[in-house]
């Protein structure tokens, strides 16, 4: 969970920074998308680096889900008889929604890919520039797309709030005073990520970015 999660967190950070390019205009955003595909081009074919990254990311997602399913199945087997009354004593809302939150995020990613990567359900269509898909996808007329996006991103933020410090704990890097710092760091990182992801669609919906 920790290692595959870390891969995805790394991806999310880059993805968030890439999205912010839309504030520099459509050109800049499209150039960035093009740059990703032509990275190291003389040495690797077109889309070489990107394809390698996509394979790595896909593996991380699959292994993360496999680990989560294994943990859930072990947990069910370890407690065949449920409590009549059970009260949580630990702090933190995020820990309670890791499993179903994760499933919800996975379902959202399917929609997200269909919408903005493949353009199948996007008004700009399949053969459009990435910036056009992004800007037309988040127009006020499609407010519900933006609403679902906002909910999904907040879920991602909550998932990471527990997930990031949890990864440090799993790898044994949290001890004593450092626990507080790691937990605060996880919270801060998640918050920055959420704000960075929410900025472009909201700016587009309210007409700041055209």
């Amino acid at each position, binding site marked *: 969970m920790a290692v595959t999660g870390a891969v995805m967190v790394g991806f999310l950070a880059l993805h968030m920074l890439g999205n912010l390019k839309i504030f520099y205009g459509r050109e800049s955003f499209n150039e960035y998308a093009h740059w990703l595909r032509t990275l190291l081009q003389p040495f690797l074919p077109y889309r070489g680096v990107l394809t390698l990254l996509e394979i790595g990311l896909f593996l991380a997602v699959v292994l993360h889900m496999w680990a989560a399913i294994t943990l859930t199945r072990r947990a069910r087997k370890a407690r065949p008889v449920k409590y009549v009354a059970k009260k949580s004593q630990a702090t933190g809302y995020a820990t309670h929604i*890791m499993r179903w939150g994760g499933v919800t995020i996975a379902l959202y990613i399917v929609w997200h890919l269909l919408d903005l990567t493949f353009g199948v359900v996007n008004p700009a269509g399949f053969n459009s520039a990435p910036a056009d898909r992004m800007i037309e996808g988040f127009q006020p007329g499609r407010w519900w797309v933006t609403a679902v996006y906002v909910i999904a991103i907040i879920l991602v933020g909550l998932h990471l709030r527990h997930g990031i410090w949890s990864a440090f704990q799993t790898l044994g890097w949290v001890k004593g005073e450092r626990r507080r710092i790691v937990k605060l760091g996880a919270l801060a990182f998640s918050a920055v990520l959420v704000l960075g992801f929410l900025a472009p669609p909201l700016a587009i919906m309210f007409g700041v970015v055209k």
Partner: protein
Amino acid sequence: MDLTLKVWRQSGPDDAGRMVTYLAKDVSPDMSFLEMLDVVNEKLILEGDDPIAFDHDCREGICGMCGMVINGVAHGEQRATTTCQLHMRHFEDGAEITIEPWRAAPFPVIKDLVVDRSAFDRIIQAGGFVSVPAGSAPDAHAVPVRKEDADDAFDAATCIGCGACVAACPNGSASLFTAAKITHLSLLPQGQPERLIRAKAMVDQMDAEGFGGCTNTGECTAVCPKGIPLDTIAQMNTDYLKASR
């Protein structure tokens, strides 16, 4: 004070079990939770009923025998307290109290609130021996130990093996118990020779017993009567990862 108790009754390992309601009248607020159950049991015996079976021994909060889930919380809502040290003054008059045994597949119910915690013994056994010279007690300053290490090792060593961590864990994981036992030796010089083999063997035994995996929810440390910190689990993970390399 008068209380309504909803208690898990199960005549034996093969019985399906059910919640049964009892009235506990004239309970003194000065009684411990176990003394309150003693009074209820005396009445049950006088009426010719089977008394409620529960584990207990020292009743001083140090043996780790007692333990039940009270109103959905292992050892009750009073923090850092074993069931025997929980007093009735923490309950309201007329309150309804739900009492259940630890719930985990590796802790099968023997009767009512008594569960078989032999799985813990097998985890300890898997840890094996510690290489220390036998004979008369060595001088206290023969092997220097850093104060911080001694404190952390002692914190881990206060684990009484009651099983509340397993009971509270949504995954039914025994990580806090196993981690406490691994940590209290792995922080001391005496525990170094077998440190990694011990961590590997104990974690493998824990998994073999059918306990769930840790997802760092922190439910265990919240109910632990000795307040064993999650740091121990990080220590266990460190040792286990090193041993698996």
